[in-house]
């Protein structure tokens, strides 16, 4: 097993949910590739710790075949923000968010923030096709697509209005008042993990939005223990083998 460097406990937790192949891991990878120079990742990229100013934000992605069958109550437990991800070219991936994934958020914080993210926008939206200007030159897209499409090549199946309507239903499911929650216009994103379109905006908007949750949690001051604290008393050699 790789020996990871020791990391601090995260101050707050953000989780990504969504059907297979909507690009959840690619989204996270796109963000971490460009911005996460100070990121520490665990094996398999299912857990990222992002330093955001003085705070540590953990970002959870589903791992391996967990995404098929295996998400338990722990995944969303205590989450301050949930990113519900769908594919803009696949209506079913939006429907699955409500049918399969919404109930998993029961274990998230009561004041949890929800973001709806339609990925693969480069396939339907000309504005999403050009790589962000800040991004490094990436040889892979050029090699795989020597002649970029001049216009959208796929039909958009999920409109922004569909996402806004789902956002309202999510709030109702959580028993939240639409008037006191963040507006749909601000919380519905369309992104392209491939080109980087809107990816920074998504994550950094959420990181800013969860700051109040961090401060609240710190003031509540849960008296949990840090198991990683080295032993202060000296043990005898035989002590560690029962």
């Amino acid at each position: 097993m790789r020996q990871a460097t020791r990391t601090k406990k995260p101050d707050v937790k953000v989780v990504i949910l969504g059907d297979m192949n909507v690009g959840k891991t690619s989204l996270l990878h796109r963000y971490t590739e460009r911005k996460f120079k100070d990121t520490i990742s665990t094996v398999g990229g299912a857990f990222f710790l992002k330093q955001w100013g003085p705070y540590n934000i953990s970002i959870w992605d589903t791992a391996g075949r967990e995404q098929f069958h295996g998400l338990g109550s722990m995944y969303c437990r205590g989450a301050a923000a949930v990113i519900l991800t769908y594919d803009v070219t696949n209506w079913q991936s939006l429907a699955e968010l409500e049918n399969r994934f919404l109930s998993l958020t029961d274990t998230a914080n009561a004041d949890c923030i929800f973001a709806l993210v339609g990925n693969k926008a480069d396939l339907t939206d000309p504005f999403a096709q050009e790589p962000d200007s800040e991004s490094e030159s990436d040889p892979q897209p050029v090699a795989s697509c020597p002649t970029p499409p001049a216009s959208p090549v796929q039909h958009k199946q999920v409109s922004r209005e569909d996402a806004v309507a789902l956002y309202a239903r999510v709030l109702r499911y959580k028993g939240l008042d639409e008037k006191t929650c963040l507006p749909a216009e601000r919380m519905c994103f369309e992104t392209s993990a491939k080109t980087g379109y809107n990816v920074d905006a998504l994550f950094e908007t959420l990181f800013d939005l969860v700051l109040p949750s961090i401060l609240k949690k710190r003031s509540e001051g849960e008296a949990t223990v840090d198991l990683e604290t080295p032993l202060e008393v000296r043990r005898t050699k035989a002590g560690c083998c029962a």
Partner: protein
Amino acid sequence: MPEFDVIVLGTGLKECVLSGLMSANGKKVLHLDSNPYYGGESASISPLEELYSRFRVPAPDKLMGRGKDWNVDLIPKFLLANGQLVKMLLYSEVTRYLDFKVVEGNFVYKGGKIHKVPITEAETQASDLMGMFDKRRFRKFLSFVLNFDESDPRTHHDMDPRNTSMREVFRHFDLGDDVVEFTGHALALHANDEYLEQPCLLTINRIKLYSESLARYSLSPYLYPLFGLGELPQGFVRLSAVYGNSFLLNRRVEEVVLEGGRVAAVRSEGEVFRCKQLISDPSYLPERVKKVGRVVRVLCLLNHPIKNTHEANSCQIIIPQAQLNRKSDVYVCLVSYTHNVASEGKYIACVSTMVETGNPEKEVQAGLALLEPILEKFLSVSNLMVPADDGRRSQIFISRSYDPSTHLQTDTEDIMDLYRRITGSEFSCRDPRDADADSDE
């Protein structure tokens, strides 16, 4: 036909720890459970309505707070702070998924009252668990135990640890019955008195473990996870998933296929999965386990801490067998809303022991009396199953059922023993982050 190194049946804590460790060792693992949730017998039940439904108890018109605030352990147990299970959590980095609190109280029942298990020298001096002269002898005994090194005969005081019974050790230090009882049951965590005739090495190591665990956080030697014990299996599931292994919940297991007396495959809902080794909890392979006893557990919902525990929000009380003229100890443990397992102001207690008569509820009456008034009770009696063989020939390795104790010591020992048989080697107990690790070499 998919092929795996290891197939695991059941997502109880033991199975999930082993699944996670096998994955980290590079094995290709398939994990199946017939339930739609993780945890099996060691799950935490949420919401509260589900607990009533599971025990077929009619739910009251007005539930206690929000049902979703409850996470009720079917088998509540505490972790020893310096135990192997914590080391496994650290080694595998599952700790990043979980939060723990120190259990606030640790008590032993004697003469109809509960007594705090002494923590400090001053508390030992003030404790009414032993008399004045016993205290001096106990300190000598404890010093012997803490300095004991299996590989250094100079620390053995002329007693061979593999041939000297624990009774002889107690006699050597001239400890009275009261001290022997307290030491054997509340420190070494033995469930009965059979250990007295066994070689002393296990008991000495258990007392050392208790002391080292106590030294970590001072309040008590035990830890408990926020949101209940059911979080532990899920933490190890996540470890396993990160390594790319497969999980199928809500899957019926139809058959385990052997070839030449050795496990070859598992058939589940028409699909056949091949494997080289099989790990299972007892419920999937009833013909390969035997019953060695029955366990009674009474889960109780309360709206108050236990009397005389200094308002502890979490605690363990051990009632040694001799106090009730029984063969096995009775265990009481308490957790509460402070661990996010109950709604505000509510507590969850459990009383458990081995069944010895035809009236199991009567056998735990002394424990229940400590909890009154009780808002709600959920009684269960389950078989204690152990594997019929060690699995070396068949490569089928079955865990033991969970015993009545409210600590995970015996269960951790079962995990270690299973690991040894499955892999052929000891789980390394060196914690890479242990500051003393280098000096131990």
